[in-house]
């Protein structure tokens, strides 16, 4: 095993319950995004583009799709003889063993994995953000500042600042205070949940945290404030670019829809910094003679006969004749049959909407208005159904 300078630990175990029906069957990082991608593609592609070859993916909740999607990591060129992608589920030891109990606890339980690679630095990532970032630059910053902990930070609008972990920095970008979701934020610099630690610092911090029985074992809640109290050298690396947390139905919907706007920040067309994905092998999409597609994204393997506007159509979707799709996101392999109308709806993977259904808000609504309808994966909406706007439609559970 060759010594690695930096090892990435990707936290992908969260349930993502705020994504409702979309995460009923799969972990949040495995949820489809922007047509052909899955949320984890962005973080894994960032690693590849930043020359970070060793990635531990910490999984826990419904890992089937995520595991099979990541595989050996070859889709992101991470199948590397030195390093590679390692799926790290919770495991049993001789006497101990438990589920991952918080983000810091998940990393703590895998300290042997990090020790095995013996890195200088550990990059802590989260699998539920959509962004494009060169971690190598952040690492350079970390080294330049002779920092022990570096937190990636992004400017957010003041009024939204109380949703994030907020950092206050001095003139040298050194962090003076850190407060998780403060009611009265005194800065507009938010933590992106991306950290670089010196491995020695992290190891010490994790051991201390594990001993503290009152701790929630969370990076943002416990580790960072605790390290600041100990007057460790903690710096903020300010990131300028596109970054979205897609943790809720609304933020997921808007982040998707943003990609339709011209001059979109997350430029997925940039050949210099490509976003890779493990896509299914599908033929080009076919646009029938009755079809109309405007201001939309359409992926491979689709067959479109209907009228699609302001929407994102993922791979393998079928849109029948006379179908109207507006302001909606159709996830992979959705089928929409003749005459159905869908507006402002997220239709889950493999869901099938039979003929002449009406789903979502009917009348013209401003796309920014809330009231997003969600249809769960694999759900079958029977012919002629009417589903009101803003409803979450779950599949009946068969036990």
């Amino acid at each position: 095993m060759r010594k690695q300078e930096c090892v990435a630990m990707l936290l992908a175990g969260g349930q993502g319950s705020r994504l409702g029906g979309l995460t009923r069957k799969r972990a949040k990082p495995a949820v489809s995004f922007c047509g052909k991608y899955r949320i984890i593609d962005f973080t894994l592609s960032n690693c590849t583009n930043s020359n970070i070859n060793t990635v531990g993916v910490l999984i826990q909740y419904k890992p089937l799709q995520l595991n099979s999607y990541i595989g050996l990591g070859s889709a992101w060129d991470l199948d590397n003889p030195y390093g590679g992608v390692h799926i790290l589920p919770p495991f049993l030891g001789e006497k101990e063993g438990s589920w991952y109990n918080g983000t810091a606890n998940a990393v703590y339980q895998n300290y042997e994995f990090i020790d095995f690679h013996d890195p200088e630095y550990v990059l802590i990532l989260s699998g539920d953000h959509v962004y494009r970032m060169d971690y190598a630059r952040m690492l350079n910053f970390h080294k330049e500042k002779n920092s022990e902990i570096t937190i990636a930070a992004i400017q957010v609008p003041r009024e939204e600042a109380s949703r994030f972990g907020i950092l206050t920095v001095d003139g040298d970008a050194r962090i003076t205070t850190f407060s998780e979701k403060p009611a009265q934020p005194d800065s507009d610099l938010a933590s992106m949940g991306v950290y670089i630690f010196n491995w020695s610092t992290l190891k010490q911090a994790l051991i201390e945290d594990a001993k503290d029985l009152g701790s929630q074992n969370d990076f943002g809640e416990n580790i960072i404030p605790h390290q600041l109290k100990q007057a460790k050298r903690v710096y903020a690396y300010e990131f300028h670019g596109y970054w979205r947390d897609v943790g809720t139905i609304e933020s997921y919907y808007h982040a998707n829809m943003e990609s339709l706007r011209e001059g979109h920040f997350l430029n997925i067309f940039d050949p210099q910094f490509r976003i890779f994905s493990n896509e299914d092998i599908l033929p080009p999409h076919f646009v029938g003679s009755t079809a109309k597609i405007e201001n939309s994204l359409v992926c491979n393997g689709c067959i479109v006969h209907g009228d699609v506007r302001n929407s994102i159509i993922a791979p393998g979707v079928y849109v029948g004749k006379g179908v109207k799709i507006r302001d909606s996101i159709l996830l992979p392999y959705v089928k929409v049959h003749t005459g159905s109308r869908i507006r402002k709806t997220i239709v889950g993977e493999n869901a099938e909407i039979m003929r002449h259904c009406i789903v979502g808000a009917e009348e013209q609504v401003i796309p920014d208005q809330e009231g997003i309808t969600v249809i769960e994966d694999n759900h079958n909406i029977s012919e002629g159904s009417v589903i009101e706007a803003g409803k979450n439609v779950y599949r009946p559970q068969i036990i």
Partner: protein
Amino acid sequence: MSNAIGIIYANSATDNLQGLALKRPIAAVPFGGRYRILDFALSSMVNSGIRTIGLVTPHHYRPLLDHLGAGKAWFLDRKDGGLFILPEAIHGFSENNHTFCVTDLYNNIEFLQKDFAENVIISSGDQIYNMNFKNALEFHNDKHADITLIYSETANSDKQTDGVFLEMGEGRRVTNILDKKSRERGLFLQSHFVNMLIIRRELLLNIVEKYSGIGCIDIIDIFNSNLQIFKIYGSLTCSSIGTIHTLKDYFDRSMELLDLEVRGRLWLGGDRIHTKFKDYPPTQYTSQAKVSNSLIASGCSIAGEVVNSIIFRGVILEQGCKIKNSIILPKCHIEENAQTDYAILDKSVKVNRENIFKGSSHNPLVVFKRTMV
């Protein structure tokens, strides 16, 4: 199914593709929105469980190897088996009538010697099909055949003037192999040999060694003169879409893809056609886009009008342009208000604004690679 290895003759070249095959073999000509012609033969073999495939490469092999790499997209980067490059014997002959030249195999005879497989499946690399060889191989084994020639039924025997036809007796034993000339004498047969065959590996080795001194001789001619000695059978397939030898073949076969029935046979079934990964983003339609009856690959940006056309990966169509009955190869850029009708634009062609390209259905216009007009 693992008791067979594959050989694909990817070295057929032609002058009849008007520049599309100028610097690439036919096998490397882009086809169907995101594929190259070779992908069809290669994927068919891979989907049939064959994991050792030899590729007879042509003189201009760069585009072919660029596409194939280590064969990862076809699951051929393996320890056991994999993709083998078999350089062709005679470089530089762009037009020869031999499909399966024995000398090409003789030069690479080790590929055949070192394997243990019972049978060899040989296919040309210039045709469009999606076929699982499982049935043909079962037939081959059931008949204890030396050679099985795969054929398709041509409904209209006048349509196919080229190629080789089979005359079969009882139990589909091949009694005669007829070429174009005998057809001109008025012998019409419907069993059209589709340049795919199964042969016992030991027999193939014997043939190659015995006939290697003669120069470039087609293996089919050898079969023809040994009809009594070899047990040759015919096996029917209906999965062949056609061979690409002329520009008209290319244009017509491409346009047939707009027909659901053809696409159903070719790529909507369970066996997928594999091709090099490009990881292009989804195709973007602007609010000015108008597309009908067309195949569109990924990574395109469409602001113009597209009718009855095939658009490959990474094409940019600006506002007001009109693409009709055309085939636009990867990374072309068509500026505002430019028009094409019955045109084939090779890779990376840039059409400046207001330009108009017009061909006809019998004679589509071809624009060379990297041209700026």
